[in-house]
């Protein structure tokens, strides 16, 4: 009684006094979990690993919410595409137009002209050259027009329009004679001093040596553009800006082709296309991929897929491993023998080749990407439980010989509870360590498969199938932003899990010095 009273009085008196050496209050009591955590956080590498994993998780799961884009949102852009527009030429040789498609000997005409003859024979026919103006000749035979030879041609402003022989002849003649109007094929036309032909005050053609042709039918060549082009060609410019009557601006590039003695005019046309492999910019910090999707977003969603697959696979493996390992270790005898032989068989199956075969088969069956992801998880999980089962069995074999298990037996606790409530909790440390390590290796396996194109498929992103783009060597050499970030994400996650696993192993080990 006195002692107790002493003890009760003591605290008041002792406030300033040191505690006695064997006083419980001197000792800070830590639970085993707290001890493990303390040891874990004292290890620099494991803390670094934890930070890496937390960062990757935030990046993948939170990032997906924060970023304004969707996983498979395709971006488009306007790009300047040079398209062939017209060909321009300053004509310096004779061109001709025949009345009908009969054979006409142009060379014979040139020869006659060179020899200053006004008559020539060709193919048994007699031809007569009639001068209509400078460099403008009419070829007649038997008092009928055969052809017209000219250097200044009649250029239609609408390239789909073809002028008849009579029309061409009348227009060229009118231009040569400087007469302001002419009529052909029952229509009346006016022509000004520059050779522009009007029909009802609308310009339809130009008589000029400057010939603009187009390979494409129906190309409209406005008069203004024609003049600008002519000026540009005369000044030997390589670029031309032209604003049409609607105010739309166009860029043209001019290129002289010596072989044909003409200028290739290309129109810069902005086209709406998928924004593929765009360089990193403010809108897309890591650029866009081959489908015009934002790389950063793909990376985040890919992280989700990779991490979630890792966790599910390890969960399946751990579940099967604990179940079979527990049963095997607890019961021993033939059950143990049977399960361990199954484990041996699984160990012996070459898993990577098998997964590749299964992946190729799923390719052939054209399984939907979503279902395929599910199968992939099941296959990977089913192939990786034996390692866990073996570990659990070994632990349980030694644990079941200990006194506390005899105690549970003496208390009459059911077998089910003995295994799952008394044995399994004691193997949790080893289980956590092996699961953490397995997480890393599963993520690697999944990434390798996706890289080979046998794992997660488009439209789903995974770090592996993002790197798959390097199979195109142009991407590998020029677009680092496509594959390097994904590779580092992968490395950081796997490394993080391995660091944590390593740190946990040390922390759980009671023999550890620190």
């Amino acid at each position, binding site marked *: 009684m006195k002692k107790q009273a002493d003890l009760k009085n003591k605290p008041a008196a002792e406030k300033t006094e040191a505690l006695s050496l064997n006083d419980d209050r001197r000792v800070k009591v830590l639970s085993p979990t707290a001890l493990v955590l303390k040891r874990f956080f004292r290890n*620099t*590498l494991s803390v670094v690993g934890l930070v890496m994993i937390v960062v990757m998780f935030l990046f993948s799961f939170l990032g997906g919410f924060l970023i304004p884009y969707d996983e498979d949102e395709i971006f488009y852009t306007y790009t300047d595409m040079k398209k062939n527009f017209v060909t321009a030429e300053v004509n310096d040789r004779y061109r001709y137009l025949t009345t009908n498609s009969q054979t006409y000997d142009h060379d014979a005409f040139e020869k006659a002209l060179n020899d200053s003859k006004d008559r020539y024979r060709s193919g048994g026919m007699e031809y007569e050259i009639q001068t209509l103006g400078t460099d403008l000749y009419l070829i007649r035979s038997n008092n009928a027009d055969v052809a017209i030879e000219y250097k200044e041609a009649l250029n239609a402003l609408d390239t789909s329009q073809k002028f008849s022989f009579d029309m061409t002849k009348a227009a060229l003649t009118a231009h040569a004679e400087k007469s302001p109007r002419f009529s052909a094929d029952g229509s009346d036309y006016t022509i000004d001093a520059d050779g522009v032909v009007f029909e009802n005050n609308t310009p339809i053609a130009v008589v000029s040596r400057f010939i603009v042709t187009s390979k494409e039918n129906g190309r409209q060549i406005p008069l203004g553009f024609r003049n600008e082009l002519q000026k540009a060609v005369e000044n030997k410019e390589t670029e031309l800006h032209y604003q049409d009557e609607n105010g739309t601006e166009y860029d043209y590039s001019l290129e002289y082709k010596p072989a044909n003695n003409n200028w290739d005019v290309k129109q810069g046309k902005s086209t709406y296309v998928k924004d593929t492999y765009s360089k990193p910019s403010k809108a897309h910090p890591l650029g866009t991929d081959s489908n015009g999707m934002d790389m950063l977003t793909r990376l985040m969603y890919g992280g989700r897929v990779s991490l979630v697959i890792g966790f599910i696979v390890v969960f399946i493996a751990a579940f099967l491993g604990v179940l079979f390992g527990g049963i095997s270790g607890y019961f021993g005898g033939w059950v143990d023998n049977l399960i361990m*032989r199954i484990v*041996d*068989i699984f*160990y*012996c*199956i*070459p898993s*990577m*080749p*098998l997964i*590749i*075969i*299964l992946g*190729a*088969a799923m*390719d*052939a*069956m054209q399984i939907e990407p979503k279902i395929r992801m599910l199968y992939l998880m099941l296959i990977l999980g089913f192939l990786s439980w034996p390692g866990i089962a073996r570990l659990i069995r070994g632990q349980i074999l030694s644990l079941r010989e200990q006194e506390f298990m005899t105690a549970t037996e003496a208390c009459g606790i059911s077998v089910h509870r003995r295994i799952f409530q008394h044995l399994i909790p004691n193997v949790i440390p080893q289980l956590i360590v092996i699961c953490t390590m397995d997480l*890393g290796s599963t993520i*690697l396996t999944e*990434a*390798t498969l996706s*890289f*080979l194109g*046998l794992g997660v498929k488009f439209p789903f992103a995974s770090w*592996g199938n993002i*790197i798959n783009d*390097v199979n195109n*060597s142009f991407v*590998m*050499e020029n677009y*680092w932003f496509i*594959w*390097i970030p994904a*590779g580092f994400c*992968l*490395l950081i996650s*796997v*490394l993080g899990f*391995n*660091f944590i696993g*390593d740190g946990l192993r040390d922390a759980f080990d009671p*023999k550890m010095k*620190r």
Partner: protein
Amino acid sequence: MWKFILKRLALSVMILFCVTFIIYLIMRCLPSSFVETQAMTLSQAPGAKPYAEWLDQLSEMYGMNQNVFAGYFGWLKDFCAGRFGDSWVYNVPVIEKFHETVWLSFIMGAISFFFEIIIAVPLGVIAATKQYSKTDYAISTLALIGISLPSFFFATLLKLFFAVKHQWFEISGLVSRDYLLMTPSQQFWDKAMHLVLPIVTLTIVSIGSLMRYVRTNMLEVLNADYIRTARAKGLSERKVIYHHAFRNTMIPLVTIIGGSLPGLFAGALITEQLFSIPGIGFASYQAMIKGDIPFSMFYLTFMAILTLLGNLISDILYAVVDPRVRIA
């Protein structure tokens, strides 16, 4: 000892039987394999027979019309008799293709294994003797990075740096375009230059686990009582570590190295594929994704045999190297 080996052999044969059956079952049950693809191609030729007829004909030709069990036992009989069949993809006997490719893989594996050992063992020992020092942290981190490095990513980085940016080594393949015009010594050099990057990849990717293994075992030995005794009787630290501790670390090391020797023949599936090295890994990858059953079966069985052989060798070596272990 002999009894133990015989028992293990018998067990290995049983396991092998089950494994091959499972693999055969999977290969046979997968749809759209080689035969279907082939029938599809043939039936699309102008004026060809319909798909179903081709399928029947080809199935009979390739022995696919039997049921799985009959097919498996037929395969097993042939396999045991040494008839491995003809590869469907390569159109040559499986064994011929195997001979053609396996030695290249073995050379690659052996060289990288050699480098792995001469790099990993000293580093592991150093890390263990200087536990918790900066050196230890650096080595452990490097080992973990090696384990965590995705081989395809690392190989691509190597390619980008050494083959594209600097062009010191070749990007892929085994020989250059002008290989046939070279003298034998140049040909050898050419092949060697092509193999540098794959071997570096293989070494770096697999060096980490060996390094960690050495470190863990060395630490265990260093904590043993006889090391304390050795120190107590005044031996130099050098002698303690390299004479007493390292020799004991050699025991698990020799077993694991012996156990991984058969694996050298297995080829590197991913690395060979990445660098287009025509080894056994590359050949079987192509065969597997095209559903070539004879070649895939042969390769998978070969791999299973290698695994079992490796386990057996390491068990036997354990007994041979460590006098304390006696197997009844």
